[in-house]
């Protein structure tokens, strides 16, 4: 049986505690064998047999760098303490071990894949830890908050237990608010044959409704033929992808794609969310058997870039304060939108400062990968495990950090508060709203 590690943070999570209580060694072994002999077997074999234990991946990881370079936080250290032990013991590990593996896989790795760029063999350690998450999910050992989010997806098809009437009401509320600025503004619901379906993540109607207002202004100013679905499938997020509940992930993604098909739109534009983009672009589509997304989908950053490039919106003011940009993993390392983001940011900011390392070599925000969704119990660990990000941001001297991703936004907000950095963070659209021209004929 594999030994246990000393704990650095004494955190209790009822999801892990109660889940582990229901486990027997036999059940664990059955799950591990099933997962490790299932889909992905070729990669698991090649990766475990190829890794020469050189430790070169260590410097890639913000958890490792922020925790005084403790080896157990290095990517390979985390694989050693989870997957290697499971394989070495042929699945014979204790419920306590699964609890520990869950803590490592859910809270000490953001699945950001930076380590794959530092491993000479290109071993996909983040993917291996997502396989560990799959094992933990099938064992029923998942942090409570994350599991609750996955449950919400399963029941309501959105992340935040938003009911349909609340969703429609929120859209109409934001429409009404925005009509104060542009009287003719509409948020068209279920408009069949529109060019664009705009989709957002569950937390937007729940507690960031002003982002829907801003998006509506942008669409109306640009004069686009767009719509939002009033029915299930409006939420593009997918925390089930991160909890390891890939069946629910598939259902959620299917609902999203089908909403667009039902409305017969030409493409989906997504709000500023990174993991949602990953779920439609890289993970969920594959689960459903699509090589790529079945209908064109673009992320907000690319959308803003195209609007500016094509002259659909005009910039009349620029942000004067020094600004820096955080590159979200899922749309930079995951999609290569680095130049689109810089095009937009430079168009609206006078004093743009890069933070280093940047672009696809960025450090993760430490909130993504479902880590922030593990909830308040893990918050201290999460912000302390990203000291490097705080140092990196402070070094820019910027007053504003742009975080074009919801998880990054919340995570970096926590980092700013915890490390008392003299800056605030915003979405790109927050700045766009201050900078674009709203033509006179549209104004009240």
């Amino acid at each position, binding site marked *: 049986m594999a030994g246990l590690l000393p704990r650095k943070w004494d955190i209790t999570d009822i999801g892990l505690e109660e889940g582990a209580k229901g486990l027997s060694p036999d059940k664990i072994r059955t799950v591990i064998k099933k997962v490790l*002999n*299932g*889909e*992905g*077997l*070729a*990669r698991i*074999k*090649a*990766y475990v*047999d*190829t*890794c*020469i*234990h*050189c*430790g*070169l991946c*260590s*410097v*890639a990881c913000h958890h*490792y760098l922020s925790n005084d*370079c403790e*080896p*157990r936080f*290095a990517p*390979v*250290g985390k694989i*050693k303490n989870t997957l290697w032990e499971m394989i070495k013991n042929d699945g014979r590990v204790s419920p306590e071990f699964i609890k520990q593996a869950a803590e490592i896989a859910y809270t000490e790795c953001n699945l950001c894949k930076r380590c*794959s*760029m*530092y491993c*000479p*063999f*290109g*071993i*996909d350690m983040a993917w291996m830890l997502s396989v560990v998450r799959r094992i933990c999910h099938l064992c029923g050992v998942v942090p409570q908050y994350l599991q609750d989010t996955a449950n919400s997806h399963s029941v309501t098809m959105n992340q935040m237990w938003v009911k349909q009437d609340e969703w429609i009401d929120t859209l109409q509320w934001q429409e009404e608010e925005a009509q104060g600025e542009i009287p003719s503004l509409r948020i068209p619901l279920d408009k069949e044959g529109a060019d664009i379906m705009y989709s957002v993540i569950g937390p937007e109607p729940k507690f960031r409704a002003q982002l829907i207002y801003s998006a509506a202004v942008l669409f109306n100013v640009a004069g686009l033929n767009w719509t939002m679905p009033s029915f299930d499938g409006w939420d593009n997020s997918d925390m089930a992808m991160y909890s390891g509940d890939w069946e629910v992930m598939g259902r959620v993604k299917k609902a999203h794609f089908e909403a667009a098909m039902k409305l017969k739109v030409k493409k989906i534009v997504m709000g500023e969310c990174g993991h949602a983009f990953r779920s439609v*672009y*890289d993970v969920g589509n*594959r689960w459903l058997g699509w*090589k*790529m997304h079945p209908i064109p989908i673009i992320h907000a950053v690319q959308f803003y870039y195209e609007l500016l490039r094509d002259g659909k919106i005009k910039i009349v003011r620029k942000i004067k304060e020094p600004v820096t940009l955080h590159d979200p993993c899922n749309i*930079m*390392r*995951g*999609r*290569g939108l*680095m130049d689109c983001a810089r095009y937009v940011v430079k168009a609206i900011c006078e004093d743009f400062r890069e933070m280093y390392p940047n*672009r*696809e*070599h960025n450090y993760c925000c430490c909130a993504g990968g479902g880590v922030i969704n593990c909830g308040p119990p893990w918050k201290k660990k999460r912000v302390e495990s990203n000291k490097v990000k705080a140092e990196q941001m402070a070094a820019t001297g910027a007053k504003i950090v742009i975080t074009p991703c919801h998880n990054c936004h919340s995570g970096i907000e926590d980092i700013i508060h915890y490390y008392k950095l003299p800056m605030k963070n915003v979405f790109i659209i927050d700045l766009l709203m201050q900078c674009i021209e709203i033509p006179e004929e549209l104004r009240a």
Partner: protein
Amino acid sequence: MYDLVRGPLLWVSFIVFIGGSIVRLAYLAYLAKKKDHTVLTYANFKFGLRSIFHWLVPFGSTNMRLRPVFTIVSFLFHIGLIFTPIFLLAHNILWYQSWRISWWTIPDWLADIMTVVVILAGVYLFVRRRVCKEVRYVSSASDYILLTIAVGPFLTGFLAYHQWLPYKAMLTLHILCGEIMLMAIPFTRLDHMLFFWLTRFYMGSEFGGVRHVKDW
């Protein structure tokens, strides 16, 4: 003993090395087809080869530039390990005697230098494994054994060539070490010699073809 290692055991080791490598690769291909279609679906020659190229060129990746000493040592180690035995004059003569085939050779002084470099690099890797805590943390007995297997033929070859110890015994030991290494390649983590190309190719395909970014 010499006749044994020079005769049948040599045959065995080459058959195990080549046959084992083919079996390992074929089995992996079979697994990929049966259980891991993702790998085949996203394989992309342009981006796969681009990634391999960047990781074969010294200082071609960010991580290599972060650690210049390790990069130099690691490249010298691998270059010496692969090319010295292939282009050594003495080995070539053996090939010629047995099969009447031969190819380019490197002068003995160069082979001597390369051998010493491999041994010193091996010492460096050993010390690094003991001293660097992130490496030590994930090191087990197998890692030290693999390093010994890799350096063994060079140490014994060097001693045999310079005849500082009983020549015949050292020569026998040298051949035996070489045979052990050959046979170990397909069945230990020395198989990274075979799998490097595949894992790098796949990650290059994903990063280039799907993610539209570099992976170096």
